[in-house]
């Protein structure tokens, strides 16, 4: 009989967790403490108010809740934090990483196997880390006849463009990196960059299979951008704005998917095509053209493209939530209690020596936490729906794909626009409407 992986047991879970904790403690004490000691030898301690400020006193002063919390909060209000950590790259990368893991486990359950199992001891949770380490440690091989600057630039550009896309998504009230009035137009502009990067990478590799894959990706992305943009015009007509935050706020009572299910379906199919996911993964069709436009990428260049494509997946799912499912709007989990936590004074970092002047502002309001939970729940749901076709459908052919894009989806998108027009002119919703 075949080898079957052992079933889940609580004992194994606890053992795995304790093992991991044990190794963390061992590494911290054996490596971390000596490093701290060595650093301390070379540092002169400052003397303030006649007292020597050794590291332990500094640590004590820093970690005192009275000082530490305002410090963290003030940091969280900087633009750097927004771009790098919470609504921006870090948050998106975290969801992207979780998506990769969930995709592998979900697909494994669908196909009657176990998926990543051994790495990290607990259901293979460290598999992603191992894959990342492997990609980093691999040699980067560039084809001899490649156009090297362009070839190097393509993966970086791809990941950067996906990051720019993420920056436009409003996550919770007041939490968006770039709150611009023409937000939806900016989204279209960013989406328009992807085919260019793809063809740049395919052309610069100077190889046959990437070339065919790049041409296919170009066909696919360009022909599906038109229904994608058309399917969103209905929302713009009804809300009268291109600002994504205002579009979310307009859905406080009901999401737009109720009035525009056709637009939502067209947009969802276009998402699948733009993301090159099965059944529309023609640009990477393995059995036909090896790996399509990714064929010549190796090592971390490939890793960057993968990171970019999963960031793109998150951004598209979030855009679907923002436009059709009402963004952060949702019922309250608990009774609302306004927390007016405003910091107006400066924070005393070291008594008598260092005071940090910061602006006041409201941080973790209940609105924000409630909105964020709803947003993440909806986004994860949309991502799961995007993932499932991979286990169900085979790959479609290029002529059938273009037929779907140009005949059916554009037609349906126009139907959606006419529905929106009817709603606006009959005065039901839209600027000055009943609802």
């Amino acid at each position: 009989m075949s080898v079957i992986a052992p079933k889940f047991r609580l004992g194994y879970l606890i053992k795995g967790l304790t093992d991991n904790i044990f190794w963390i403690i061992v590494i911290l004490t054996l490596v971390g403490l000596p490093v701290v000691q060595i650093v301390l030898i070379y540092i002169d301690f400052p003397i303030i108010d006649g007292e020597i400020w050794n590291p332990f006193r500094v640590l004590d002063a820093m970690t005192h809740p009275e000082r530490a919390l305002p410090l963290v909060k003030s940091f969280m209000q900087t633009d750097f934090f927004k771009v790098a950590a919470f609504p921006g790259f870090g948050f998106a990368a975290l969801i992207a990483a979780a998506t990769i893991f969930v995709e592998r486990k979900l697909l494994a359950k669908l196909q009657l196997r176990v998926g990543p199992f051994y790495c990290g001891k607990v259901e293979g949770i460290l598999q992603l880390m191992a894959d990342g380490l492997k990609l980093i440690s691999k040699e980067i091989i560039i084809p001899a006849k490649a156009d090297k600057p362009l070839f190097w630039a393509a993966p970086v550009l791809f990941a950067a463009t996906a990051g720019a896309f993420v920056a436009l998504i409003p996550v919770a009230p007041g939490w968006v990196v770039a709150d611009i009035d023409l937000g939806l137009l900016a989204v279209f502009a960013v989406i328009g960059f992807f085919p260019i990067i793809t063809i740049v990478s395919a052309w610069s590799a100077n190889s046959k299979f990437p070339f065919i894959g790049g041409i296919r990706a170009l066909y696919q992305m360009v022909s599906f951008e038109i229904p994608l943009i058309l399917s969103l015009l209905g929302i713009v007509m009804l809300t009268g704005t291109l600002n994504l935050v205002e579009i979310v706020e307009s859905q406080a009572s009901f999401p737009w998917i109720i009035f525009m299910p056709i637009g939502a379906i067209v947009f969802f199919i276009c998402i699948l095509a733009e993301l090159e996911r099965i059944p529309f993964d023609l640009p990477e069709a393995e059995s036909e053209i090896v790996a399509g436009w990714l064929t010549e990428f190796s090592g971390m260049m490939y890793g960057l493209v993968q990171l970019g494509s999963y960031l793109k997946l998150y951004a598209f799912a979030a855009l679907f939530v923002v436009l059709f499912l009402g963004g952060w709007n949702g019922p309250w989990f608990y009774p609302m209690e306004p927390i007016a936590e405003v910091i107006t004074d400066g924070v005393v970092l070291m008594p008598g020596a260092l005071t940090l002047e910061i602006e006041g502002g409201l941080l973790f309001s209940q609105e924000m936490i409630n909105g964020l939970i709803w947003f993440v729940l909806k986004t994860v749901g949309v991502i799961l729906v995007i993932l499932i076709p991979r286990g169900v459908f085979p790959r479609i052919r290029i002529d059938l794909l273009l037929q779907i894009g140009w005949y059916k989806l554009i037609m349906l998108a126009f139907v959606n626009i006419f529905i929106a027009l009817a709603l606006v002119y009959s005065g039901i919703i839209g600027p000055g409407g009943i609802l």
Partner: protein
Amino acid sequence: MSGQVYPKDTQTLPGLQLEKVDDRIMTLNVGPQHPGSGHMRIILKVDGDYIVHCDPDPGYVHRGEEKMAEYRNYITNIPHLERPVIHDSCNILYPYCLGVEELLGLEVPERAKYLRVIAAELNRCVYTEYWLGIYGIFLGHSTMFMWPVGDRELMIDLLDKMTGARVTHAYFVPGGVRNDVPANFEDVCLRQVNYFEKRLKEYADVFYDNPILISRTKDTGVLSREDAIKLGTTGSVLRASGVDFDIRKKEPYDVYEELDFQTNVLKEGDSYARSKIPWLDMLESCNIIRNALKKMPKSGSVRVKLKPKPKGGDTEVYRRVESGRGALGMHIVSDGKPQPYRIKINVPSFRNLIAMPHLLTGEKLGNLPPVYWSLNYWPVEADR
């Protein structure tokens, strides 16, 4: 129309008949290092997305099985003659054993005949499941890769119980089978075959009734009935084109004429029909196995005693059977020595390969995987 002449040295390679082509046409080497090629190379010339010329170039895994057979006697030939297609090893040994029995004048015991039929049908399922898995992944359907490869374990488990080996069984010997089955084999076999049949029917939901699969493979690579006969195709390819030809029915061997089964024929001749016939054959194999288990004598010998180095007369025989891919024949020439003078394996894979350039010329590049793999072609067997 500026012509381009390919370098001289490539023209001398066999299978590379390149002449002047104009600049629109690009030559693609699909294989031998390609996820969609198998152990062979397909030289394609594409004009945009259309294949204008297709030149399959097999021979990368040629192992000289036929020549090796001339240096071994009739018994020691058994384990290596099954190597060309290890997933269907019972069926490739079947014509050899039938031929050698005719040469040596052996009478096979009744129970051994039934055991042979059961092993051959189990092996047909093992091969076809593997083939179906690759067909699924060729079309980008990863579930259809995992499910057949997983369900294949049921049949492999049964064959393991029967023969003691998972894949290369060497179970058939001239004069019967190598050993009898264990005591509880019939119950286990019946249970697993029933479950296997239930799983096979689930494939229809996820694969054969899938609208995208149908839109992709219907009316692609259509092989008409006349062309199928003219090109000399066999097995599932022939039956998908509407020709009712099955060796098990037309030239019954062992106990196939006593068993109740039917052959599956479809008229379309496209790659959807060609992919469906092996699946229907697997369902029919389940019936045959159940039927054979019912009719099999409950006890008796399974092998006739042979001399250490049996010698054939100064004659030659040709026997063929229906394997997982089609008619598989063996021509054994004996000159009175313990070793055969010559063994020629007539493999179905190579005969089906001939239809490939015929089908692919004029198709789109995206149709290469479904058309190629629907031909039920096993590169290792074709090279021998």
